[in-house]
């Protein structure tokens, strides 16, 4: 979150990296947790070899290595306040080091072949065009005192996705398409709304017993041809006292949408939530200070699915989505 915001969202750094590097964004934890047979393959061996020079091996950070597998530099600078300019300088130094190397040193004798793949290609996950793809953005409001380290600082935002099959998306619209008709949205949508942390920062684990209230109602307020204008109102109250999550959220949702019944899809969708987040137990790796209660808003809107979003799934994809959906998205081939 911090490196995205203070390094790669910097316009100069983004341009510099785009022009001069080939870039990989991946999970160090996923690589470290690969089974032994996958670790024996060339891809993992390359990663391990190229990060041998890094202080902690395969660990979170920004690194520059050569295609031959030589470590050049770790390019993180400043913690908890990231020094963007210093990071940029380190990237420039890395590029100079790379360029000063003889070709035989910087390039491999031959590239890795496909049969040396250790990690499943995430970009094979392609949600079908018929699915409703929603992007959620979440941001906290200021509180006092607050530090830039804290993930609740309003300079940070969380992005996530919510994917719905056509059948599930249809439950966001009253069955009977008449102005004035109301209904509760389907249970699958309500479950995502309750459990997937779209309305708050972080990724707290919620159990069924933590859901004190979850309600989302829709009303048709106008119609023009096959286009139906919808209004949503809802509320969510979560309260958990488990070993892994001692926190609560209480908030409200208001939303607008236009359903195109001929195309069987949403023409627009715009939901907003706003609520109070109470983190009774503060985690040192996420927060600073002693402020437990903060206010947080989120926006749900149709995902523009930018070209560079390939392979990015909803955060709860592994456990919060059905096997059928995974098969349809190509994740279980």
């Amino acid at each position, binding site marked *: 979150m911090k490196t995205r915001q203070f390094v790669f969202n910097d316009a100069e750094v983004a341009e510099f990296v785009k022009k001069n590097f080939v870039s990989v964004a991946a999970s160090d934890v996923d*690589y470290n947790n690969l089974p032994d047979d996958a670790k024996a393959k060339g891809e993992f061996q390359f*990663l391990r070899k190229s990060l041998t020079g890094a202080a902690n091996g395969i660990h979170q950070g*920004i690194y520059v290595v050569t295609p031959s597998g030589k470590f050049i530099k770790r390019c993180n600078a400043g913690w908890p306040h990231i020094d963007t300019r210093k990071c940029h300088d380190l990237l420039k130094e890395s590029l100079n080091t790379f360029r000063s190397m003889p070709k035989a040193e910087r390039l491999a004798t031959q590239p890795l072949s496909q049969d040396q793949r250790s990690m499943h290609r995430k970009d094979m996950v392609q949600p079908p065009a018929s699915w409703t793809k929603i992007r959620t953005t979440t941001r906290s409001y200021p509180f006092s005192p607050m530090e830039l380290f804290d993930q609740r600082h*309003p300079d940070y935002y969380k992005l996530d996705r919510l994917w719905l099959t056509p059948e599930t998306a249809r439950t966001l619209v009253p069955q009977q398409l008449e102005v004035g008709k109301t209904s509760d949205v389907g249970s699958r949508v309500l479950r995502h709304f309750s459990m997937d942390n779209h309305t708050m920062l972080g990724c707290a684990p919620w159990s069924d017993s933590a859901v004190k209230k979850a309600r989302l109602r829709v009303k048709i307020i106008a119609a023009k041809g096959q286009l139906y204008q919808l209004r949503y109102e809802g509320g969510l109250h979560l309260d958990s006292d488990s070993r892994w999550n001692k926190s609560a959220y209480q908030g409200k949702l208001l939303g607008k949408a236009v359903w195109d019944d001929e195309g069987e899809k949403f023409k627009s969708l*715009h939901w907003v939530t706003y609520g109070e987040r109470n983190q009774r137990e503060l985690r040192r790796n996420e927060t600073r200070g002693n402020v437990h209660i903060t206010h947080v808003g989120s*926006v749900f809107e149709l995902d523009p699915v930018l070209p560079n979003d390939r392979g990015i799934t909803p955060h709860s994809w592994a456990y919060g989505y059905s096997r059928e959906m995974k098969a349809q998205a190509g994740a279980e081939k």
Partner: protein
Amino acid sequence: MMRSIFNLMAMACVVHSAVAKVPESLTWKNFDEISDYVRLKKNDLNYQKISWFSTVIDGQREAQKQDKPLLLWLYFGDPRANC
């Protein structure tokens, strides 16, 4: 000097969001105001200008082809999103 200017610019961005007024509740009256506050800002998607590979092997193959250094951005989960 340049670094000081950049730091001041960064601080200005921080101040902008840090002084937002905390709403009492969500209503249809402040629906757009809260939405505008939360929504992505101009620079929030600059990282999208970079073409990210999602696996090391795909990056290595391309870096070898282009004779360019390989940048590895490693983070728990996908560092591009969901955090």
